[in-house]
């Protein structure tokens, strides 16, 4: 278990605005993603946990050890923190072979044990054949495996990954995801993953800390955040949601339904506990849950196609005003043929609409 409460203020610099990092969180065994835009303090948080940067105030605990405590004036050196750090550029020592890089991490072990552990680790990460190569003779994916293998060899009690998949192509990214999942399965330690790739959070993380401007604006289990982001701000931040302003027109708690007006159209809405007639509320819906049609119908809104983007399995059709729809390629082939003549409608099923609290995102 990693517990961190850290604060540090940076004065306005020559080419940087004033910035304050102020976060508290706990990370249990498993993958915790630190998600947010660049410059929101994610990497700085990792650096403070690893001991590369010092917080002004706060406390960092890893299991039963105090890594940092401003009150008690404890500030362990990076060497003593047992945090495995995986750098964006891998930071394999360029003048050492892969084997020597691993040996560097296993220095504390007795000779025989060291050789055994290195051989084991090379094997586990499918690097045995490459052990004699220098880092510049390795591919991006191999370097990545090497740097993770090296970090784990030092028996860390937490692993810190700083945007490790940045700049990797699709296939390597998949390899990397597999690697993290293996790591998560085999190690009962907190793994912190800094990323600004939402897909990566969904694929790898158990929990998410959503960063914005030096604060954690929302947190929770990924599965929960995914189905109900809670607030409009989080829904927007996380992306992948259409967010609507709506007015409550009718409530029918008995049938667990409602009528709402959104985008100037009256629609069937979901059960809205705690709402009153006439309330202005926020609702969200995931693009995969909306449907495209070529004729009017229940809960359908007449729209114009703005643009489309093709992905591997899906087509993202953007109909403007928060009407992004993701449909399968087959379905898209059907509707896009008729679309230009018959016109476009987007259907928002009542079950797809989820109420959001309109309150500002909690800290």
């Amino acid at each position, binding site marked *: 278990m990693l517990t961190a409460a850290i604060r540090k203020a940076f004065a306005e610099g020559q080419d940087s605005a004033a910035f304050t990092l102020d976060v508290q969180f706990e990370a249990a065994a498993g993958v915790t993603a630190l998600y947010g835009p660049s410059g929101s303090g994610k990497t700085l948080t990792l650096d403070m946990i690893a001991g590369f940067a010092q917080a002004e105030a706060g406390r960092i605990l890893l299991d039963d050890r105090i890594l940092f405590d401003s009150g008690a004036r404890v500030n362990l050196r990076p*060497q003593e923190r047992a945090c*495995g750090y995986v750098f964006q550029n891998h*930071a394999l020592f360029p003048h050492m072979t892969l084997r020597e890089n691993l040996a560097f991490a296993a220095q504390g072990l007795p000779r025989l044990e060291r050789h055994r552990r290195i051989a084991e680790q090379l094997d586990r990460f499918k690097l045995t054949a490459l052990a004699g190569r220098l880092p510049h003779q390795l591919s991006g994916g191999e370097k990545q495996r090497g740097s993770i293998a090296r970090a784990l060899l030092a028996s860390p009690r937490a692993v810190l990954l700083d945007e490790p998949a940045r700049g990797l192509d699709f296939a390597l990214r998949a390899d990397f995801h597999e690697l993290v999942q293996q790591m998560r399965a085999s190690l009962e330690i907190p793994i912190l993953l800094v990323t600004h790739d939402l897909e990566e959070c969904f694929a790898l993380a158990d929990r998410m800390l959503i960063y914005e401007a030096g604060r954690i604006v929302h947190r929770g289990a990924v599965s929960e955040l995914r189905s109900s982001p809670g607030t409009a701000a989080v829904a927007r931040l996380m992306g992948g949601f259409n967010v609507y302003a709506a007015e409550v027109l009718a409530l029918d708690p008995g049938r667990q339904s409602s009528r709402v007006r959104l985008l100037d159209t009256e629609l069937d809405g979901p059960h809205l506990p705690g709402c009153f007639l006439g309330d202005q509320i926020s609702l969200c819906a995931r693009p995969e849950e909306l449907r495209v049609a070529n004729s009017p119908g229940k809960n359908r809104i007449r729209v114009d196609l703005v643009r489309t983007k093709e992905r591997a399995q899906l087509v993202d059709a953007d109909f403007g005003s928060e009407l992004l729809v993701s449909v399968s390629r087959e379905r898209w082939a059907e509707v896009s043929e008729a679309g230009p003549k018959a016109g476009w409608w987007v259907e928002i099923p009542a079950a797809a609409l989820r109420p959001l609290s309109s309150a500002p995102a909690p800290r």
Partner: protein
Amino acid sequence: MSIDWFPLRLSLEVAAGATAVSLVIGVWLAWLLANKSFRGKEVLDALTALPLALPPTVLGYYLLVLIGRSSVIGRAWEAVTGAPLVFTWRAAVIASTLHAIPLLVKSSRAALENIDRAFERAGRSLGASEWRLFWRVSLPLARRPIAAATALAFARSLGDFGATLMIAGNIPGRTQTAAIAIYDAVESGDSRTSLILVLVISALTALIVFLANRLEQRRGGAVL
């Protein structure tokens, strides 16, 4: 008339000694300036560059004051070894060291500061002590520019004149280095000796500068 090669041999020996001493002190100072923040860092920074700017005779004067027979260091040396420190080859080494250090500190510091911080951070997070980090990571990564600076420092020590003359003197067969011997030969009209020494020193220096450039250039290669 055969030419006296002693001054050249002495010069090479003194330069080798001075380079060795200044390499140790210079890289240590460079590491200090590159990695640590402490009070008086800027003063130290300026002090290490000073020998580059001061007239050699001024430098020699300070050295005389510092290690002369009446100074604390000079008397301590004499008490231990039984002979004065000034006007010996050792004094010439000290003068040359002082001349070589600024070059080494400046280049080594730049080389150490140029190392990607991620390497040192990685080393620390893997549990390596600062000492091990320096020997296994920082120094190997900065070895080319440091080697180039060392070569230049050797060339520089080879040619020191003013400071050496001030504290080691011009004692033929004992403290007369090549640079001083050339001056002596010109003064006494021995144009053959001066010409030969000048040519040898020039060739040596050119070779060293060429070597240093080669070391410097390959730094940007694939390995680093």
